[in-house]
């Protein structure tokens, strides 16, 4: 009896901990990786897709023609299928290589996307 209560508490704590670390937007995780570059007036946001998206959060400039470039290398998991509801994008990436998705000329705001099943999110902050 005592054992089951203790094990329930331990299991409960483990779950809360696991959920805490698997939240969509953990505080303080703003990868300021150099993944945004501008070539010939076009902004390119590079995101690696394998077992999730890295960086999970990118910061880019608003008001520039923008391409999101997904890099894959033997990606078989869900991240090979990108879904960006606000752009009406639902697309499969190449198994290995680069796949460009045109994001138009984004206004100030946050672009949210996930993988095809919804458990790997990513976002791009477009700042003015």
């Amino acid at each position, binding site marked *: 009896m005592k054992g089951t209560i203790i094990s*329930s508490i331990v299991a409960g704590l483990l779950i809360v901990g696991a959920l805490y670390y*698997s939240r969509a937007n953990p505080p303080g995780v703003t990868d300021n990786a150099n993944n945004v570059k501008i070539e010939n007036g076009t902004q390119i946001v590079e995101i690696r897709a394998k077992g999730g998206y890295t960086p999970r959060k990118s910061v880019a400039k608003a008001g520039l023609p923008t391409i999101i470039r997904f890099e894959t290398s*033997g990606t*078989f*998991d869900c991240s090979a299928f990108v879904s960006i509801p606000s752009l009406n994008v639902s697309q499969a990436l190449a198994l290995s290589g680069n796949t460009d998705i045109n994001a138009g000329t984004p206004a100030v705001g946050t672009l949210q996307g996930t993988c095809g099943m*919804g458990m*790997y999110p990513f976002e791009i902050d477009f700042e003015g």
Partner: protein
Amino acid sequence: MHCNACVTLTESELSEHPQVTSAKSNLGTRTVKICGDFGDKSFDEVAKELSGLLSQHTLSAESEKKAVNWSDFKIAVPIALGFIFVFVLLQKLGIVNLVSASKVTYGTAFVVGIIASLSTCMAVVGGLLLSMSATFVHGDPSTSLGASKFKPQILFHLGRIVAFFILGGVIGALGSAFALGSTGTFVLSLLVGLVMLVLGINLLDIFHFTKRLMPAMPKFISKRALSVSKMNHTRPTEPRQSFGRALTPALVGVATFFLPCGFTQSMQLYTLTTGSFWGGALTMLAFALGTLPVLAILSFSSFSVVGSPKAGVFFKTAGLIVILFALFNIINSLVVIGLIPPVFSF
């Protein structure tokens, strides 16, 4: 009730009632199980009304009372939580990154299959399978004894493997995938989530009103969900019906080809590039065989508990896991079409 004639008589007499969808008599326990939509009438009212139909028997609602074994939850809850924890941990440790090949051989496809069965795909295919197989056994333990008890499970796995082989070959030969669009995927995953939710709640065995709750949902979903529990009730006197029922698990197995699982879809896309029937068929076969060990453990675990005093704990654990997976799937399907912002992140 005294004899088999009474069984047939009560069943046919009760079925005449317009609101009764099915009636099944049991001589051993002297009970009749009646399914139907009676609106908000109480059990006693229904029993009285239906008794009027019977020429030589009366009905009482008493046997409907069933004790809920709450103490099972003391063990079931920690086990279910532990299972989910291990599941989350596996994803956090980056199990999906174990595939590093850029060229796909049959061996790679097999390994991808093993990893897929341990990934979040388990929440979809594994959850569906667990809810189904536990429901078979739970629904009627008597039919789970004897040689034919593995039949629905074997049919499911057979249907799945054969479908992956044939459909993989077709994709390879045609060079075009029959992938569902984003709307199709959304409808399918929402449907699977709802069916799992209903089956999971039924497995918990605490809400006797679940069956009355069901008509509130689209009828075709609740009907599907309930018919799962009847899948292995084969009656030799009705060959056509029993054939149809035996076919259902196999068809669910076939349907898993289209369920939203990243790995399955990647393999299908790769299969496109093989350009031949045999290349595609063998790749998908290797993938399906890779997923088999974990799925087999999930589906056959239900049998190890039949008749044991721990059966109640097992069904409640399975019910909780299925409910959590169902919620996970429903939330994720809403995220993908952009109705709600991302909730989980693995």
